[in-house]
């Protein structure tokens, strides 16, 4: 992929919840970036800080109880975290847009689809809040009978159609970055495939960047140019998708890959990862993954590993990334 302009640059982001001495750090020293038109994935188990990170990108975390304890989120060179309400209002929806997991819960059940779509347009592009534009948007996301769908209530649409409406709303203001937080987890695999193909097509047409947040490594392998593997609020491995998933270096990435039942090859015995994601209130010392790690040694309990470069863009945070060979 040719080098493109940097759209989003997250540097050393730290997010805490709660106050004072009881503040729990759920995201710590998190850095990653997204270039124009690119799909970047954030993967990890639930509770690893993926969704909090996603919300932080448009400063959507309520403060209190949340608190940005350090770092910056640069969008097109401007720090989102230091923006005021007025600037944020312009950013949200117009520059950064979101699609969430449960389309049924993101749509207002008492208003017709058309009303909700018009609202999004009126805020950011009031001169284009017309029925023609709404029909065009619904057509763009592949909804059959768009005119009729404008008059429908959310419950009259299936999950897949609701998610298409959400995508239409997210794209209404032609954002430069679409943050999709588990956009297909609630959908059937056949519908999931349709939605992903739609997102890929739209990305190609509109040239927007996508951050895909998921726990499904299959989706990452299918869609993302680059991937960031998160654990306990940190990125433990990052790089081009082929590199990270084809030649994983971090024991956590390997564990995740080995835990997924496969469709092809021998069914074999799967290992999984023992234990569970640590509670931020009782974060282990040193490397946060050490209590679950098969390679754990003395140094892992004492010292948190720093970023090390495997090659070019491929970065890993593990004392023993060279151990365990290539898989």
């Amino acid at each position: 992929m040719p080098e493109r302009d940097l759209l989003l640059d997250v540097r050393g982001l730290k997010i805490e919840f709660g106050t004072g001495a009881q503040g729990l750090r759920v995201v710590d020293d998190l850095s990653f970036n997204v270039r124009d038109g690119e799909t970047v994935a954030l993967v990890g188990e639930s509770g690893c800080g993926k969704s909090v990170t996603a919300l932080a990108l448009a400063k959507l975390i309520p403060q209190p109880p949340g608190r940005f304890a350090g770092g910056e989120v640069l969008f097109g060179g401007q720090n989102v975290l230091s923006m005021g309400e007025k600037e944020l209002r312009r950013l949200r929806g117009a520059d950064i847009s979101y699609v969430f997991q449960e389309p049924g819960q993101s749509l207002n059940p008492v208003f017709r689809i058309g009303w909700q779509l018009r609202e999004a347009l009126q805020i950011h592009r009031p001169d284009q809040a017309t029925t023609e534009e709404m029909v065009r948007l619904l057509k763009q996301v592949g909804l059959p009978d768009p005119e009729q769908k404008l008059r429908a209530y959310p419950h009259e649409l299936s999950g897949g159609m609701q998610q298409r409406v959400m995508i239409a709303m997210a794209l209404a203001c032609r954002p430069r970055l679409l943050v999709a937080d588990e956009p297909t987890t609630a959908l059937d695999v056949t519908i999931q495939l349709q939605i992903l193909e739609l997102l890929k097509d739209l990305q190609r047409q509109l040239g927007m960047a996508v951050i895909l947040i998921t726990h499904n490594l299959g989706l990452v392998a299918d869609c993302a140019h680059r991937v960031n593997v998160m654990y306990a609020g940190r990125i433990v491995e990052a790089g081009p998708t082929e590199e990270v998933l084809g030649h994983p270096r971090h024991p956590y990435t390997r564990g995740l890959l080995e835990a997924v039942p496969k469709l092809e090859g021998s069914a074999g015995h799967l290992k999984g990862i023992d234990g569970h994601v640590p509670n931020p209130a009782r974060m282990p010392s040193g490397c946060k993954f050490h209590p679950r790690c098969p390679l754990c040694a003395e140094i892992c309990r004492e010292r948190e590993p720093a970023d090390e470069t495997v090659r070019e863009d491929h970065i890993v945070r593990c004392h023993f990334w060279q151990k365990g060979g290539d898989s």
Partner: protein
Amino acid sequence: MSVVPLLEVDALKVYYGASFRQVRAVDGVSFRLAKGQCMGLVGESGCGKSTLGRAILRLEPIHAGSIRFNGADIVSFKGVDLKAFRRKAQMVFQDPYGSLNPRMSIGRAIEEVLDVHKIGPRETRRTRVSELLEAVGLEAGYAGRYPHEFSGGQRQRIGIARALAVEPELIVADEPVSALDVSVQVQILNLLKDLQQKMNLTYLFVAHDLAVVRYICSDVVVMYLGRIMEAGPSDELYRQPAHPYTVALLSAVPDVNRALKARKQPQDSSQVRGDVPSISGSIPGCPFHPRCPRAEARCRQEIPALRIVGDGSRLSACHFAEEVWEKWAVNSDQ
């Protein structure tokens, strides 16, 4: 196999609602399940797989058909007989949060099952609870704790312990791992596998995730709109499907290895169009024809019967089953 099957379902129908707006959730399903077997029931949401699983445990009203368990027709069971049947067939639910009483300690929740079915003398029931907790990989000392103190995976272990309390022969597991993270999912799947071997359990495993089903089940039944589309041994069915619906489902599953391969040499996917139609609307002919890439005039008129394809272990309800089957034989040789 000539053994008497543990479970024999014949032309089972579960209908809801009055005749003019009838929903045919399960519409004439027949299959057999041998003792010690693990059969997967897969399909999209709304295909009737959960309803079928629940109907087999007599948790849904049965419209027609028979369910034989160890040779006895359980559809007519009432009162004492039904309670005795429920000691032999148990359910594990998807949502371990929703299926445990938040105000009851988990030890008590498991003991309650023993009380209801009057299993063992009262004094030894506590000991039995400890044994059950240990059998599912939890500490016996956890018995006094409450559901909110456990993680999702641990709660699913509790749900399994509760199902095992009556020493059942059959377990219907309805999406037991779909609410769990991948790392935890494998732990629960491995536990279910171990328990099956140790206790000679028979599973009916309802799931939408085809890869999970392949990992744990020896046989698979693919359902669509209340009917069986295809059935057979899982390894073969995944390698060489004989129904366009199975092909569509399989190609829609995101798979790391396959996606990484496809990055090097892009292929076009056989994507199915449209949503699952509502079950209440009657579709003439094959129920899958509006979404099927292979559909012809015949599919719109004639309902394909479920019939044997290939070497005899496979069943498919498609007019063009042989054609689909042979196409995949060529593909797998490459």
